[in-house]
């Protein structure tokens, strides 16, 4: 079967339709969406008001673009936090839930492939997350009108959020396939999300501190100059990438060359003005890393699920022995 046909078949996946219908019939779907939008709206509104007040008191004038960029950043960070909380919750019960409901065996006896089941579960759980992100776009657009954020920043900030959602969704589905119980899968999914969102930041900071105290690196944050020894781990942290996108210090659009360099050589030694390595913006690394994690977790999940079915075995023909 051609890759295109397989992809098109993947889109026409009964599991996606069934999951979508089931999810949207619960009271939770509209409540979560309402809560999500209300919280992001409230954060944006509060930030605008506080920022306007503080700016008026301190310098007596209000810079719309500065206030707009700050409010946008606050909302984007808050959205990323919410998505990192929602994505595991939406995906962690995907396969283990089928097992607990005793519907998995019946599904495995159907013609849907193991890939079709995992892909369907991933798309279904991501569809709701993407719906949340999409519904929040008008809120971001309203703050965008204040200025201070250019369209590329707007786009990249949403891209980082979507990539994070997909990465965390795929990780959660992997745990859901590995563990029999949804509780264990949920705990591991949140542990993974914590590791990605907070663990990478803590470890990176510790690495930087170690470098600094060892005198092998110079942490020059006070001078605003570049950080020559920025640990590569920072590049995996979506919050760091988002910060670098919204408060750029040498921001550059990715090129095909950049991606190829990233894939072949990895991130350069330097952050923005690298020493001896190719230019890689943190968000390039984050998006690519999340994509790779999603692919790896999907492959692993499919492999685990295939193990629950009888796999085709070739009949070994007995070798005719020649007469002595």
């Amino acid at each position: 079967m051609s890759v295109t046909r397989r992809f098109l078949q993947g889109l026409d996946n009964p599991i996606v339709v069934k999951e979508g219908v089931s999810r949207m019939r619960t009271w939770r779907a509209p409540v979560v969406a309402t809560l999500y939008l209300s919280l992001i709206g409230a954060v944006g509104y509060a930030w605008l008001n506080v920022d306007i007040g503080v700016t008026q008191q301190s310098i007596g004038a209000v810079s719309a673009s500065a206030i707009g960029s700050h409010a946008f950043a606050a909302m984007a960070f808050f959205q990323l936090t919410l998505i990192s909380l929602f994505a595991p919750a939406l995906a962690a019960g995907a396969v283990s839930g089928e097992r607990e409901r005793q519907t998995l065996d019946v599904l495995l006896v159907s013609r849907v492939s193991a890939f079709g089941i995992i892909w369907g579960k991933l798309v279904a759980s991501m569809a709701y997350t993407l719906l949340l992100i999409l519904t929040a776009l008008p809120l971001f657009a309203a703050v965008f009108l204040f200025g201070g954020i250019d369209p590329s920043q707007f786009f990249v900030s949403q891209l980082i959020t979507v990539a994070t959602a997909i990465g965390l969704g795929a990780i959660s589905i992997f745990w859901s396939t590995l563990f029999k119980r949804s509780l264990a899968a949920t705990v591991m999914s949140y542990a993974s999300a914590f590791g990605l969102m907070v663990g990478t930041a803590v470890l990176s900071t510790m690495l930087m501190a170690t470098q600094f105290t060892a005198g092998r690196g110079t942490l020059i944050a006070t001078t605003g100059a570049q950080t020559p020894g920025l640990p590569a781990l920072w590049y995996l942290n979506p919050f760091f990438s988002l910060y670098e996108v919204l408060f750029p210090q040498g921001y550059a659009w990715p090129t095909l060359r950049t991606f190829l360099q990233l894939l072949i050589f990895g991130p350069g030694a330097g952050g923005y003005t690298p020493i001896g390595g190719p230019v890689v913006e943190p968000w390039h690394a984050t998006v690519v890393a999340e994509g790779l994690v999603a692919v790896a977790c999907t492959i692993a999940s499919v492999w685990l699920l295939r193990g629950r079915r009888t796999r085709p075995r070739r009949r070994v023909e007995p070798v005719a022995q020649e007469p002595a």
Partner: protein
Amino acid sequence: MIAVDHLQKSFGRQVALEDVSFAVPKGEVFGFVGPNGAGKTTTIRILATLSAPDGGDATVGGVPVSENPAEVRALIGYMPDFFGVYDRLTSGEYLEFYAACHGVPRRRRARVAQELLELVDLTDRRDVAVDTLSRGMKQRLGLARALVHDPQVLLLDEPASGLDPRARVEMKELIRELRRMGKTILISSHILPELEQLCTWVGFIDGGKMAAAGPMEEVRDRVTTGRRLRIELAQPSEEETERVAALLRDHPGVLAVRPLPDHLEVAVNDEVEDEQLLSALVEKKVRVRSFSQIAGDLSEAFMRLTEDHRGS
């Protein structure tokens, strides 16, 4: 249609199946009988491509389960002993979902669902959420689900477990209807009287070993030694019953006599001819209202077989 040949399966040190062999011809209803933990579900799961055997072969419609599981899946409809439902779907949506999973073209799915709901008598529940159905209705819906792709073979693991008497009767009727439709059905149960009325072939399994398998009558004849007769008297007074019981006990070939309130049960060996016994009673002025043979009981056959099997 189904052939199981020297099947073996272990879970760690626990041997689940040990040299299990049987065959089910096309269009027959095979009763797979055994106590809990005998290996019925393990065998059915291997046939359903959900578990790989450690040894031996299993084929469905001539297709080896281990070599071409995808083709086998197209041939079978599987109903596990316990199965859940998607509680936020209606009965119609539930069947359409599985029809899609089995590759039924989109334009045919609604019609297939409607026809199957008619078959299992749930047409009026088409738009009702599945979780509001009774257990019996869910079992019938599960059977309809196993039929969405019109499989030739049905693997039904304890389909009547947990059902009330009425639901059991309905389930039996459904299975008879499916046999009339030409389906080959493997049905496991430990409720023997139900299978006796349904099945044309039978297989006894105990402790992972097959004790017997074949056409129902053949297995019954093979297992049952001697016959049992039921004699109903025209004047069943206590004295008359005792007199007739004594006469029967003196008759050659009679093994045992059991006087019951309204009739006598007589165990005889295979050499006793019914006409001779009846003539002997009539000669002794016994007024007989009815004289019939009690059919061999599947439960009895099963008990004997498993006792022999455990003893061997």
